[in-house]
C-alpha cells in the first residue's frame, strides 16, 4: 500500500529520531551553560543564530548517524522501483517503503540524500579549513609587510579571482588532468601551508623556551609530514591517511578557488589591525614580526574570520554541488547532492521527486550556515 504524505513524514521523522535526540541534548546543555561558553554561548541569545545552528547541526548529526537513518542501501537497485512515486512499498519486504520515491536507476532517493550529507559535510569544512590556512599564511604577511610581496601576491590572487569558476573547474577537474599529475603538484603546494602555518605559529610563541619549542615543532612536523605524504602523494606507509584521486582532484580545485578570497579578506583585516596600539606595544617590546602577526594581530581578527568561515563553508557546499551538477570529478554512483540533482534534472518535467530532496537538502544546509554566520556577526558586534 502506498503511503500518504502524512505517513511519509511520520516515517521520515521516526528515521531521524537519533538526530533529533542529539539536537535536543546539544541545545539543552548549551543553553544551560551559555554564560560560560564565550562566543558560542552568546549564539544562543540570537534567535536567527540559534535557528541557523539548529539546521547546521541537524545535517551534522545526519551525517554522523547516516548508517542508522537510511532505510535501504543507497547503491542498491530494485527491479520495478524505477521512478516510483514517494511512499511506494518495496515489493517482497515487510514494512519497507521508498519514502521519497525511486530514482531513474531504481534506487531509494531518501537514503541517497541522507548518505549524500556525509560527503558534503566532510569535504566542505575540510576544504574551507585548508583554504583558510593558505589564505592566512599568505595574507597576514602581505598585509603586515606590504611592499613588493604584497603587490605580487595581490596580483596573483586577483588573477585567480578573474577566472570564471566554471572554466577553472572544467580545466582542473578532468580525467586527462589527473593523468598529467597536476592535481598532485597543486596538492603538494597547497597541503604544505597548514604545516608551515603551525610550525611558524608554535615557533614564534615558544622560541624563548627551546625545550617546549622543540617538542611542539617536532610533533607538528612529524604529524604534518605523515599526513602530507599520505594525502598529497598517497605514500603513507601505514595507509592511515589516504585520499581517492578523484576526491583529491575536487578537493584541490575547491581549495584553490577559495584561498584567494580568504587571502584578500585576511590582508584587509591585517591592514586595519596593524595600526592599533597593542601592535605598536608588541613591536616596542621587541617581539619578532611573526609573533606580532600570528599572536597579536590574528587573534584580534578572529570575529570576522569566524563569520566568514561559516559563510565560506556554505559557498564551498555550493561549489561542490556545482561540480556534481556538471558531473565533474565525482563517480557516477556517488550519492552527493550535486550529482543527484544533475541526474534528476533530466526527467524533471515528468518525475520531479528524485531531484527535489537533494535540492532542498543543499539549500537548507547553506541557509543554515548563512543564518549561523548572521547570528555570530550580530553577537560578536554587540560587545
Amino acid at each position, binding site marked *: 500500500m502506498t503511503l500518504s504524505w502524512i505517513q511519509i513524514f511520520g516515517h521520515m521523522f521516526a528515521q531521524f529520531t537519533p538526530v533529533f535526540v542529539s539536537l535536543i541534548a546539544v541545545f539543552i546543555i548549551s543553553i544551560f551553560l551559555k554564560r560560560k561558553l564565550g562566543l558560542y554561548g552568546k549564539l544562543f541569545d540570537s534567535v*536567527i543564530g540559534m535557528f541557523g545552528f539548529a539546521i547546521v547541526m541537524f545535517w551534522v548529526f545526519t551525517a554522523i548517524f547516516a548508517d542508522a537513518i537510511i532505510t535501504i542501501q543507497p547503491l542498491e537497485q530494485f527491479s520495478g522501483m524505477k521512478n516510483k512515486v514517494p511512499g511506494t512499498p518495496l515489493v517482497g519486504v515487510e514494512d519497507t517503503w521508498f519514502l521519497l520515491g525511486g530514482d531513474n536507476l531504481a534506487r531509494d532517493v531518501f537514503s541517497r540524500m541522507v548518505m549524500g550529507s556525509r560527503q558534503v559535510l566532510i569535504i566542505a569544512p575540510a576544504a574551507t579549513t585548508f583554504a583558510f590556512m593558505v589564505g592566512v599564511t599568505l595574507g597576514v604577511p602581505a598585509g603586515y609587510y606590504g611592499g613588493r610581496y604584497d603587490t605580487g601576491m595581490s*596580483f596573483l590572487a*586577483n*588573477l585567480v579571482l*578573474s*577566472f*570564471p*569558476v*566554471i*572554466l577553472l573547474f*572544467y*580545466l*582542473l577537474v*578532468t580525467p*586527462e*588532468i589527473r*593523468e*598529467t599529475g*597536476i592535481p598532485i603538484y597543486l596538492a603538494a603546494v597547497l597541503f604544505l601551508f597548514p604545516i608551515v602555518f603551525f610550525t611558524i605559529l608554535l615557533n614564534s610563541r615558544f622560541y624563548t623556551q627551546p625545550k617546549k619549542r622543540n617538542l611542539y615543532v617536532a610533533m607538528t612536523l612529524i604529524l604534518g609530514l605523515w599526513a602530507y605524504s599520505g594525502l598529497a602523494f598517497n605514500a603513507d606507509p601505514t595507509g592511515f591517511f589516504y585520499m581517492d584521486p578523484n576526491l583529491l582532484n575536487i578537493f584541490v580545485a575547491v581549495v584553490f578557488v577559495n584561498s584567494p578570497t580568504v587571502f584578500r579578506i585576511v590582508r584587509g583585516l591585517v591592514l586595519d589591525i596593524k595600526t592599533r596600539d597593542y601592535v605598536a606595544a608588541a613591536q616596542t617590546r621587541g617581539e619578532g614580526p611573526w609573533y606580532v602577526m600570528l599572536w597579536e594581530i590574528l587573534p584580534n581578527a578572529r570575529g570576522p574570520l569566524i563569520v566568514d568561515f561559516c559563510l565560506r563553508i*556554505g559557498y564551498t557546499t*555550493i561549489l561542490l*554541488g*556545482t561540480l556534481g*551538477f*556538471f558531473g565533474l570529478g565525482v563517480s557516477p554512483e556517488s550519492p552527493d547532492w*550535486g550529482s543527484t*540533482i*544533475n541526474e*534528476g*534534472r533530466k526527467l*524533471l*518535467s*515528468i*518525475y*520531479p*521527486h528524485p*531531484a*527535489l530532496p537533494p*535540492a*532542498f537538502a*543543499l*539549500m537548507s544546509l*547553506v*541557509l543554515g*550556515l*548563512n*543564518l549561523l554566520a*548572521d547570528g555570530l556577526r550580530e553577537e560578536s558586534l554587540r560587545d
Partner: protein
Amino acid sequence: MGMFILKRSGLMILTALCLTFVVFFLTNLYPNLEKLAKTEGNMRMSDEQVISWLDNRGYTQNVFKRYGEWLGIVPGFRHTDEEEGKITGRCIRTSNTPETAPNFCGVLQGDFGFSTVFKEPVSTIIGRRLGATGKLMLFAFLVMVPMALVIGILAGMREGSRTDRSLSTFAIATSATPEYVSGVILIAVFASSAFGLKWFKGTATSAVDDATFVNFTLPVLTIALYGVGYIARMTRASMAEVMTAQYIRTARLKGVSFANIVIKHALRNALIAPFTVIMLQFPFLLTGVVIVEILFNYKGFGWTLVQAAGNNDIELLLSCSIVAVIVVLVTQLISDIGYVFLNPRIRVS
C-alpha cells in the same frame, strides 16, 4: 584620472595575457591533445598515429611558440606532406591557398581560429552566442536590480522592524539557493506535470530566436533570484547606515515627511555602495549563466563554454576565456571609476 585608467588598462592586458596562457597551457597538455586527436581523427588510433596526427597539425611544438602563433606574433605553423607535396597549416583554410594565406594569423590579426566542435570560425560562434546570452543577462538585470533595490530600501529604512526582518530573511534565503537548486525547484513547480501548474516551459531552447513569456520567464527568474539576495543585503546595510546620519535627523526635525526623507535625502547616498556591488555581480552572473543555460538548454555563451571545455575545443575555449576575463576586468574598472564619480570624497590616486 587618465593615469589611473592607463595603469589599470596595462594591468588588465597583463592579466588577460597571463590567464589566456594558463588556459592555453592546460588545454595543450598531452592527455588533452591525445583526446582531441582521438575525437577528431579516429577513436582507435595507435600512439604513433596520434603523435603523427598531432605533428602534422603543429600541436607538438613548444607551448610558448604555439601561444605566440595563437596571439599572432609568431608566423603560423606550416606542414608539407612529403608524399603528396600538399602544404597544410594553421593559416590555410578552405577559403585560401598556401600561396595567398597570410603569414600571421592570430588574435592580433582578428583571427580567433576555427572551432573543432562546431566546424565554424570561432568569431562567428562567439558573436552569435554572446548575443543570446546578452539578452538573457539584460532581462535578468531588469528583474534583479529593481527588485533588489526595492527590497533593500524597504528593509533598511526602518531597521529592526518586522518588514526588515522578513525581507532580510528572504534575502538570505535567496542568496543561499544556488541556481541549480532554484532552477530545479522552479521547473518542478511551474513546468512539471506532477504539480499540474504547467504555466511555463522547462526548456528555453526556442527562446534564443523567439523569447516569449512562457519560455523565458524561468531562466531569467533563476538567474535573478540568486543575485537579488546579495544586492538587497548590501542596499539594506547602506540604507540603514544613512538613515542614522545626522542630516536625516535634521530633516526629520524640520518636519519633512518620512516618504520625502527616504526619496529625496537618503536614497542618493544609500545607492553608492550597491552600485559597486551590482557591477561586481557580473562575474558571479557569468557562473550562474553557465548553469542556467545548461539547465534550460539555452544555447548561449555559457552553453558554448561547456561544449568547448567538454570537447577540448582549444581555440573556442580560449576565446570564451578571453570574453569572460574581459567581462570581469572591465566591470571591475567601471565599478572603481563609477565609485569615484558617485562619491566625490574619494580620490583615485
